[in-house]
């Protein structure tokens, strides 16, 4: 028994600020999936945000301060897992660049090497290839940009979704094209962002799916907001909610019409 506990990897869950503030269900779903995969999950309270809004606005000083806090908070864990390709990409790919020629360079590199996005962690690191969830219906899946292009996440969520009883995956046309969210981009250039998400919404509607899934809450809120503004009858959820069987509550932005 003791032996077993020792072997369980200690995972620090970086829940991401958007999930923390807007969609706690994704956090609980992540914990459940990680525990089922045999991890011991902890959620350090000192976490805030990965720092992308500052980083992508050219504010290095604030980014470094935020990143320093993140590293301090999480470096003790065997793995750091985030339910977002964008935030995991920031922690894994951009922190090392951020701390280049900085006193924390080695520390940042050691931290970054342990960071994974949830889907790829489950499949590539923990060797999970099936979940015990069921959901009747047709879903479609959007490949968020950072996860896809920075971390190579594409097959992993599809493999796990393939094991969900009753679920049929309808591939989305241009699933690898940006949804127009882009963090602060969507409020700095709302009209351009709108044009891009309109295009995405049209493809989602044409997919014939009743549910849209993706692995990044920012993109999901953008697409959900557009679909709801258009009055489309499509549920929008984070992929972890479905995989963990925690998809019975209200969908993202999904309340009364």
């Amino acid at each position: 028994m003791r032996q077993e506990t020792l072997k369980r990897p200690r995972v620090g869950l970086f829940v991401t600020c958007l999930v923390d503030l807007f969609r706690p269900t994704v956090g609980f779903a992540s914990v459940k999936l990680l525990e089922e995969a045999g991890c011991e999950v902890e959620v350090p309270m000192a976490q805030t945000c990965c720092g992308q809004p500052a980083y992508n606005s050219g504010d290095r000083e604030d980014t470094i301060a935020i990143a320093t806090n993140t590293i301090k908070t999480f470096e003790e864990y065997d793995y750091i897992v985030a339910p977002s390709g964008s935030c995991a990409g920031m922690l894994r790919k951009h922190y090392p660049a951020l701390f280049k020629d900085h006193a924390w360079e080695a520390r940042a590199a050691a931290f970054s090497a342990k960071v994974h996005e949830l889907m790829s962690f489950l499949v590539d690191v923990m060797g999970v290839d099936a979940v015990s969830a069921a959901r009747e219906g047709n879903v479609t899946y959007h490949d968020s940009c950072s996860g896809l292009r920075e971390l190579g996440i594409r097959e992993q969520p599809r493999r796990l979704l393939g094991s969900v009883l009753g679920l049929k995956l309808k591939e989305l046309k241009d699933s690898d094209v940006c949804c127009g969210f882009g963090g602060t981009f969507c409020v700095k250039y709302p009209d351009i962002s709108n044009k891009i998400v309109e295009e995405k919404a049209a493809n989602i509607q044409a997919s014939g799916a009743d549910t849209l899934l993706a692995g990044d809450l920012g993109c999901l809120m953008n697409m959900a907001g557009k679909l709801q503004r258009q009055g489309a009858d499509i549920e929008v959820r984070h992929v972890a909610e479905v995989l963990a069987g925690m998809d019975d509550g209200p969908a993202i932005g999904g309340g009364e019409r």
Partner: protein
Amino acid sequence: MQISSPAFKTNARGALADPHLQEALGHVRSGFIDKRQKAVDALPEFDALRESARAIKDHTLAHLDLYLEAYEEKVKASGGHVHWAETAADARSVILDICRAVGARTVTKGKSMITEEIGLNEFFEKEGIRPVETDLGEYIIQLRGEHPSHIIAPAVHLTRDQVEADFRRAHNHLPPTRDLTEPASLLSEAREVLRAQYFAADVGITGANFLVAETGSSIIVTNEGNGDLTQILPRVHIVVASIEKIVPTLADASQILRVLARSATGQEMSVYTTVSTGPRRPEDPDGPDEYHVVLLDNGRSSMLGTEFQDMLRCIRCGACMNHCPIYHAVGGHAYGWVYPGPMGAVLTPSLIGVDKAGHLPNASTFCGRCEAVCPMHIPLPKMMRHWREREFARGLNPATQRYGLKAWAFFARRPRLYRLAASFAIPALSAFGGARRRFRYLPFAGGWTRHRDLPAPESRTFLQQWRDRETRKQEART
């Protein structure tokens, strides 16, 4: 060329509301992407070729002065002339002198972005010289008094119907009943009209895809053959090229050619690849009497050794803009100067200043598709971020953005305060969302809610709930 980059947002709004442009942009989405993918899939060594293309350019840039000098020697040895132009104005006056010396009235031009960069056509017209664009796309936009909206497909912002209407208006000596429905008929009509111009021209101007140090040659690639006629028929051929077009050897150029056309149009090779070395030799069947090269710097040498040096690897294939969601939405003119899309978002601030071109590197979602397809592995998003850093350091971005960011960063840097503030704000916002669980309008979130609903927070924050859960567990144990 007038710079309208500071008005990017206004330009973009206009572009989004222009139905012709939106129709034409649909062809960019469908026309380039699949063809490139097919060409890439058909060549298993494509990625290896990209690596070697990158290595060739990196090596050249590290020894740029050496290769440029070697190139100059070879051009001279073959009987040509090299003119160094530090600025656009220098280049224009060198070119004017050459044209004046032969009493040029008409100048034919092959497609060249560098002559756009130095505003050559407007300059010629002021000086009483008639420039004639011979590339079909360039010819069309010259008829319309426009500028290219794409670096390899200058008229991609137009629909076929618009072009037909322009041709009927401009070529009114031709029978009005003629059939112009096929794109090929537009091309042959342009050829017909241009034929006389080739012979009337005293000077032919082309750009260069490569300058070869080993041989002193310039290389152009085209699909219409217009470049060949432009440089062979007139008495004087002027090549206008920027300094980073240099490669050491012909073998290096051929290596890069293998990724160029595939990335640009999905062709294995462009239809014409033309190598020219010096003026006509006695044994040559044709060619110009004079061969000049104008080497333009225009700010490029100051990119060397900076975080923007990698941009000088660019071979102007256009793949980055063909795959860019922003370019797809607004087209090339919105960017407000010569170079659009991701490559323009990095290059334009270097050439005209980030104070004028500041919007360009900001108008990106960092989706990374440009970098993923760039045959020269140029880290475009990273360099756009470097521009944002410079803008932030100089306080160039709008005050509202800076304050918003600072306010948010204040909390993100202080975990306790962040948790405290969120534990009050989030449940309140959640309740405010009501049964609809989303907002159609929210003060301070107008940028978001103008076009889409904002999902309301579910309930209390995750960290609040998690802490309660842990406390309950703790209590259960004790």
